[in-house]
């Protein structure tokens, strides 16, 4: 009898897990702790870049008449922006800003100046995209979820910009160009080659230049900062060549792949074909980048007229237009953050507008050459360079128009520049929404009304209306 009890108890005991305490089950076996500042670089950089590139491909390209949709007139090409577009940056960029914050915090704790500088730079980059897209955004009060603040107040765009400029100023002073990075560096390979730490520094300054140029007209303080910066290339080294440019060159080996590598062809170039404006201009000036970017329709290239009357929908649907070269989907080139070409156009503009004493034409031509080089064009035909529309004529329009082509597949930068300068001069299609007026910003995601109502209502009161036509601070003149 006793033996039976013993066996019973044994059976029960063997099948239970009471050998461990509850606390033993409060440790996540797959979690990684003990992070280094370098732990947060690769994934953050890649995710930020690909998020921005993807959003640019779908939204910026339509707004800026690079592309147009063949289908039913619902796209941003007609300035009809669906609420879903408002969310493209919000959560993804704030999430990466959170990772950058962790990197910054760890770098400061460990006194790792290069990672601190990189964190400041990336923070300025991601922050600038958010504010240039939406205007006023939560910034100084953001990312405090862990401190139980999940409803951050909105900073004014000017406050945001002031912070960004401080970060970039600080980053530039922090870099130790004699110390390699301790972890993988997808952007400049500065973990393998110490000389490349300087490229990070140049990127910081080029970004600084981009942001100052965007707001220089708002106050002499910013204009003076810009001048001071351009006057001291020793302190603020800038990019000298295409290879200094900040672009991710994908190896296309998992996970470092073109963001469109494993998506459907259709999502890349299916219903979005090139727009007439983009194709016609490149065709007219015999731009050598055109065959790199676009497919031929028969013997030539053609684009969809933006805002074509919907009565022509049937004809448009049945017509073949130039589309993105499918090769772009798997190319290494869809990773631009800030190219050397863009910096050169910024400098050309700075010369033109008196922020810098240098030859605008030189920088302008550098910009064109750098962009062609970036896209693998080795010999630039004279017919192109000497075309009246291309040969430097000392106008803002020309600089920004050429910059527009250089900013191809570079996130929202074409749109930001258009909102600042009004260039290039785009066609107004016959049937556009929003009275044919280019949207000035993206509204806040409609989840803001749900999740951060009080602060959202405050900011709406401040900016007037949460509308695509409300001008952000740097657009107000």
């Amino acid at each position, binding site marked *: 009898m006793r033996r039976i*009890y013993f066996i019973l108890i044994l059976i*029960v005991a063997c099948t239970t897990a009471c050998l461990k305490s509850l606390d033993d089950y409060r440790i996540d076996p797959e979690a990684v702790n003990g*992070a280094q500042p370098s732990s947060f670089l690769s*994934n953050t950089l890649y995710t930020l870049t690909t998020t921005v590139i993807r959003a640019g491909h779908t939204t910026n390209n339509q707004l800026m008449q690079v592309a147009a949709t063949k289908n039913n007139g619902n796209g941003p090409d007609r300035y009809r922006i669906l609420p879903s577009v408002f969310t493209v940056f919000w959560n993804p960029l704030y999430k990466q800003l*959170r*990772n950058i914050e962790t990197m910054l915090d760890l770098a400061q704790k460990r006194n790792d100046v290069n990672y601190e500088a990189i964190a400041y730079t990336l923070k300025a980059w991601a922050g600038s995209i958010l504010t240039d897209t939406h205007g006023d955004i939560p910034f100084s009060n*953001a990312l405090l*979820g862990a401190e139980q603040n999940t409803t951050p107040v909105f900073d004014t765009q000017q406050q945001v910009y002031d912070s960004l400029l401080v970060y970039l100023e600080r980053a530039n002073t922090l870099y130790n160009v004699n110390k390699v990075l301790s972890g993988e560096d997808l952007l400049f390979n500065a973990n393998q080659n110490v000389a490349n730490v300087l490229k990070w520094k140049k990127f910081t300054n080029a970004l600084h230049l981009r942001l100052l140029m965007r707001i220089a007209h708002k106050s002499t303080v910013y204009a003076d900062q810009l001048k001071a910066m351009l006057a001291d290339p020793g302190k603020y080294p800038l990019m000298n060549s295409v290879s200094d440019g900040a672009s991710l060159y994908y190896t296309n080996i998992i996970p470092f792949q073109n963001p469109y590598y494993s998506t459907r062809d259709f999502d890349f170039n299916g219903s979005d074909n090139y727009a007439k404006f983009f194709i016609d201009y490149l065709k007219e000036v015999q731009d050598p980048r055109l065959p790199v970017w676009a497919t031929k329709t028969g013997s030539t290239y053609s684009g969809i007229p933006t805002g074509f009357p919907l009565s022509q929908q049937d004809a448009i649907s049945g017509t073949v237009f130039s589309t993105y070269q499918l090769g772009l989907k798997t190319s290494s080139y869809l990773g631009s953050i800030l190219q050397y070409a863009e910096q050169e156009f910024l400098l050309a503009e700075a010369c033109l507008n008196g922020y810098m004493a240098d030859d605008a034409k030189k920088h302008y031509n550098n910009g064109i050459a750098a962009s062609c080089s970036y896209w693998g064009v080795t010999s630039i035909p004279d017919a192109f360079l000497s075309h009246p529309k291309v040969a430097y004529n000392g106008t803002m329009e020309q600089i920004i128009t050429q910059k527009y082509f250089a900013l191809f597949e570079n996130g929202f930068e074409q749109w930001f520049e258009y909102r600042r300068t009004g260039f290039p001069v785009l066609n107004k299609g016959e049937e556009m929404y929003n009275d044919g007026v280019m949207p000035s910003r993206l509204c806040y995601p409609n989840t803001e009304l749900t999740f951060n109502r009080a602060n959202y209502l405050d900011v709406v009161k401040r900016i007037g209306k949460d509308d695509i036509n409300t001008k952000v601070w740097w657009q107000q003149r």
Partner: protein
Amino acid sequence: MKKKVNRLRQQSGAWILIAFIGLLSAWPSAYSNAQTEKLSAPVTLKAEAILLTTVLQQLQQQTHYIFSYDQPQLSAIRLKQVNWRNTPLGTVLEQLKAQTGVDYTVLGKNIAVALVRASSSSGKEQPGKLTGKITDAANGEILIGSGIRVGSKGAASNEQGIYTLELPEGTYIAEASFIGYKNNRIAPVTIKAGTTTRLDIALQRQEGKLQEVVVTALGIKKDEKSLGYAIQKVDGDEVSSAPTNNWINALSGKVAGLTLNKVGGPLGSSDVVLRGDNVLALGGSTALIVVDGVPISTAQSGTGNGPLVDADSPVDFGSSLSDLNPEEIESITVLKGPGATALYGSRASNGAIVITTKSNNKTKGWGVYANTVQEISQVNRWPDYQYEYGAGGGGARYYSYGNTVDGNSLQTATAAWGARFAGQSYFQYNSPIDPVTGQRTERVPWVPYENAYKGIFRNGFTSTNTIGVAGPNMRAGITYLKNNWITPNSGFSRVSAWLSGNQKISNKVTISGKLNYNRKFSDNLPAQGYNNQTIMYYVNQTAPNNNVEWNKPMWLPNQEQVAQQSPFWPGMDNPYLISYEMLNGTDKHDVIGNINAVVQLTPRLSLSLRSGMDLNYEFRTQQRPMSTYKFKQGMYRQQSVFRIENNSDFLLKYDNKLPGGIKYTASFGGNQRFNDYKYTDNRADNLVIPGVYNLGNSRDPVVTIPDRASFLVNSLYGFLNLNFREKVFLELTGRNDWSSTLPKQNQSFFYPSINASVLLDKLVKLPQFVSQAKFRASYASTGVDARTAYTFLENYSSTSFPGSLTSPGTLPNKNLKPQLTNAIEAGGDFRFLNSRLGIDWSVYRNVTNNQILSLPIDGASGYSNAMVNIGKVQNKGVEIMLTGIPYYNRDFRWNVTLNWAANRSKALELTTSPGSEGMLILYNVSWASIQVVAQEGKSFPQLYGLGLKRTPDGQVIYDNSGLPLLTDTLQNRGSISPDWQGGIKNELSYKGLRFSFLVDIRQGGKMMSYSHAIMAANGKLRETLPGRETGIVGPGVVQKADGTYVPNTTNVSAATYYSRYFNYTNMEANVFSTSFVKLREVTLNYDLPKKWLKGTFIKQLAVGVYGRDLFNWTKFPMYDPETATMNGSQIMAGIEIGQFPSTRAIGANLKLDF
């Protein structure tokens, strides 16, 4: 005389009992068998001058027939001589009849013998009368409407319980019957001409009808009348007689308050919801499933992809629940609310489904049982496709495959706005091709093909075969199921084997155990949802002029495994390639077992020990060949999923009586639950060699995605049952859990419950027609821990970049508290006319507080979600079950069961979440402007989406080009929850033949149909035909620059109009009511009469045919309004995204016992 009759009845008590046990299972057949049975028993007797009564006694001894007779009547009759040697009884009785003038009546094993008075003596002889009262043997109450049958005549008792019959003079056997009582036969009954004979008959209640024993929480068996909460018992037959691949779907329409959110596909997984969703998360309100006292896993572990054009498509791999073998289910008890499940603790706050599997034979011998079910299934409902216009982008009123003289190529057109099928000819796919130039040389007739949409489906076939043995202490068997589903090359097979046994190893100790082993195997389970690599994507994208057969062969010539043939839009992967090459395989082993010991420590104190587990391992593979739209370089992935759920319990039980006749049972027990999950996903998303599917063929380093989680919950509980003289019952329970899924400071939580049952009919005198009047009420509180482990820990997670980390998307909550559900419930179980009519009703209110949710928050906080304790959700509702027997007699019986339930959910408070402001987004497709939300003050879930923009007085506003404008913000588009659901089942039986049909009804509730949006916006449905030739002027207004409205007069082409109107962003045009009436189940079964089987080795044989989901009456435009979407591993109701058609099944079965 009467005394004698009673004595005879006592003598024959044994046979009555046996006869009636037989009647319980097959009442009509037993009777009819007896009537016609041949009296072949041999009789041997040789005697002279023998008394008839002595002869009859001899016959009774020799034949085992029971002879009843009126001794005084026959005592004087003597036979001169008898000489029988193995003479058949029938012959003997005939001789007796001839020699003595007695007649006999055979009734089963009972033979009544009586004198027949010669009627020839008087031509105008009056009949006699038989009258009497039929009463309840226990309390003497009259039984109104009870039946009596004497010879060929029958009558029913009146409101005083009195029956009257006129009969010719003679001796008879009388049989009285009443629903819920055992039949009572009385013989002989002697009727004399012109006189009235009084015969009062008392009937015994049939045990197990009014006093049904049910399995409650923790597997404790209780008398149903003692329960203070609602339960519903379902026989195993209900899920096995017209089986479904996932057995739980066979409960549709049978249980009041049960909602099944069903996913299409071979395995047909369902989310099981009782009394409405009370957790603010999609798929979060699943009921607990318990098999033989041990909870099993209902978790789906999907491949983590969404249904709508995601990286890969979700696949329904089933769960331990869907893999249970319905053949072995003895009964199912549905415990509907927390009142019933308080003892199960945390996980049963959403109710529980308690399954008892079959155990060993109750009879002594060994038996073999076998059955086979063969079923054919087909699509049961199609959308209303149009076959009048072919492919074309819009107004391109021609067709051309490739650029030809007719115009540019429309090869890739997926919309059907093109040319009308009017007898003309075009260059098409099937045009002759010039072998040199590759150009199409001839126009061929422009015709639609119905198989464009329908041709990819085939008839499904399911075969289930079972064989088993059962003996006194053991039961074992095996079932093999093979399913070929309606899409090509899909389906699964499953082997289920089981072994159960029990052994009394001493006077005090009994051990029992059960073991079920299932192995499920599939080469291909079809991918779900709307995505390039799903069959339904093809069906939604193809056009009526695209013959599906043109997709054969699936490879381009000489490019097998390298380049698919995709004759139309390349985004539609070839449907045969999807079926035969894009495979999702599984191989799953599942062991569900338990071992039990009951130790009777003293006569009053017992100890039960139980340990059970559900252990499964699954190996899954997905392969995609090269040239598929999403995986140009091919793909191979494999997952290993290991899961164990282990529960060990002890329970001490003490029974005793208090002075005053109060019985009580005090119990104390404990449980330890251990759950472990280990998952590894290995991905080779680019392959080197075509057609080779393994990790070694990966072009890039294999990406591994691991996941592990385990948790432990310890519990102690106690309960006290009080029984006040079988009239009032009271139960008090309390349970405390300690869970590792909560932070240490909040790991312990206690929750009590109380319930009571009052049998009013026992307390006060009620009218005679009330057979039972039970009231019940309960209050229960249930604490619930976090559903997933580690949610309170802040951890970085790894990324696909080696050594690179990312911060968590969800903000952990270091102070997570348990969720709390408080439920009150009241109801009654009233039965009338001796249970011929029954009504069982419940009203309930459940309030769930402090829900543990991952709640979306402002991304600017650095997190997209936060773990929070938020919200208060109330569910209140009514459930009614009616049972009735409108008509019955000896051979025929008509039973009706009706169940009806209405639930109203309401999100009472959502504001405790920081900044949530009364809205909680449960599912969001931002680019399509689709949201499923919970909204404060409203039922939930609610659909949110864009709709038509309207003037203040409701007119649709059009833009200047004549197209309707959509609203700027998302608007409420209705509640997903139905207003009510119900089912009516009719069962008709005549002798061995049983026929039943079940009608299942749902009223109200909305669903967004994404498939409809795609099909309608592309002109595939008949509703897009009006205006094709004339264009459409939308009824409504246009806003002028000065803000005033003028009527819209712009004519736009049908293509442009409909593609805007039905676009998926216009939820208004794509939301439909999910009301339906379905002919859910029809069965026809026949038990072969035993006499046909006599002399064979077969003890019992039953044949049947059945139909399932035969008709579906609904206004829902796509396949089935009763569908849910597989979203990764969640099952989501309210939005249909590329759903599979649902099927109609017709089957036949054969059951054998030998």
